[in-house]
């Protein structure tokens, strides 16, 4: 009786479909990905059932963080360069081309105009360590008003979004809202997280 030969099979399996899928996903993520922009401040937004999405462009983001500081952010490099030019005219502060370039690459900032020049002149690692005091919004000294006004002059389509922290006192938000209302901006957005709508009332 011939010996029964146990056929030795290689423990290899066909990986081709898996690899196909892996590459498909890689391609998908590579094309759809948009790196999260580095923000000057972390804001924990409250949640709401609202399902409206914030548009990608032409948005002024006014972040109010937990320490009642206000940050201003606008998208678009050209817009930011033009905006800085207008502000420097208004406040009589001159910015070098390098400082303008740095400014155009920032997502948002929270420094008063008189400190902006020295802030922009810093080296990037140093700048990240700076504790930004926030943009003044008091009735005596309201720089936020000028930032918003100049941006709206440059771009009429701009939408204003307020991104407030969960724990911020309404007082600060109210100041921002008042600044907007003084300019007859009565329609704006509040940035929130997602929340499921309760099924029944």
């Amino acid at each position, binding site marked *: 009786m011939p010996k029964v030969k146990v056929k030795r099979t290689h423990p290899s399996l066909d990986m081709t479909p898996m690899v196909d899928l892996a590459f498909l996903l890689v391609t998908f993520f590579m094309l759809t990905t948009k790196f999260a922009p580095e923000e000057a401040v972390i804001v924990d937004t409250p949640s709401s059932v609202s399902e409206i999405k914030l548009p*990608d462009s032409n948005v002024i983001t006014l972040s109010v963080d937990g320490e009642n500081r206000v940050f201003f952010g606008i998208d678009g490099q050209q817009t930011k360069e033009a905006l800085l030019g207008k502000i420097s005219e208004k406040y009589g502060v001159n910015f070098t081309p390098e400082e303008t370039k740095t400014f155009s690459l920032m997502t948002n900032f929270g420094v008063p105009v008189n400190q902006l020049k020295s802030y922009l002149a810093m080296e990037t690692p140093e700048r990240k360590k700076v504790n930004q005091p926030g943009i003044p919004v008091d009735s005596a000294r309201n720089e936020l008003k000028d930032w918003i006004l100049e941006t709206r002059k440059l771009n009429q389509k701009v939408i204003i979004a307020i991104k407030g922290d969960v724990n911020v006192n*309404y007082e600060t938000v109210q100041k921002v809202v008042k600044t907007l209302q003084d300019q007859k901006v009565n329609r704006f957005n509040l940035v929130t997280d997602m929340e499921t709508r309760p099924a029944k009332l």
Partner: protein
Amino acid sequence: MAEVQQQADSGKGGKKRAKKMSTKIDMTPMVDLAFLLLTFFMLTTTFSKPQTMEINMPVKPENEEEQMPLKASNALTIIMGENDKLFYYYGLGDPADNPEVIESDYSANGIRKVLISPKVRGNDKMTVLIKPMEKSRYKNVVDILDEMKITDTKKFALVDITENDKKLVSTKLGQ
């Protein structure tokens, strides 16, 4: 056909067979790399665009006389206090009326029940006045605006708190 004939002509014994090479290549490093990239992109990608809530503030009146005053019977005032406290009363808070201030909360059984009660729902002209106090958290404001959306209340306005309201709340708390 020609090729076949040529082979027959040569007549040499023993077919020369090309050594069979395995067509398999080791794909492991490639797969490793693919998954590495996949993980990287999956983690760095930001999918969800932030949600927003649209809000329209009442337009500041240019001319006071042209404004129609809101009737006290058509008003519900919600006051947000500090430490997540919530009060409401019907009417405009005229001290002469001595409105009954009721404490409520942000849960589903709190202010939502008030907003869907027949007294509010049944009155088409009912306007909800939202008055956050300075020390109330921003979250409370968003929560209340959210309640408006959940209960489908169309007429509401975010207005500044008045001294009267502050007094009403402090009397309520003092009890």
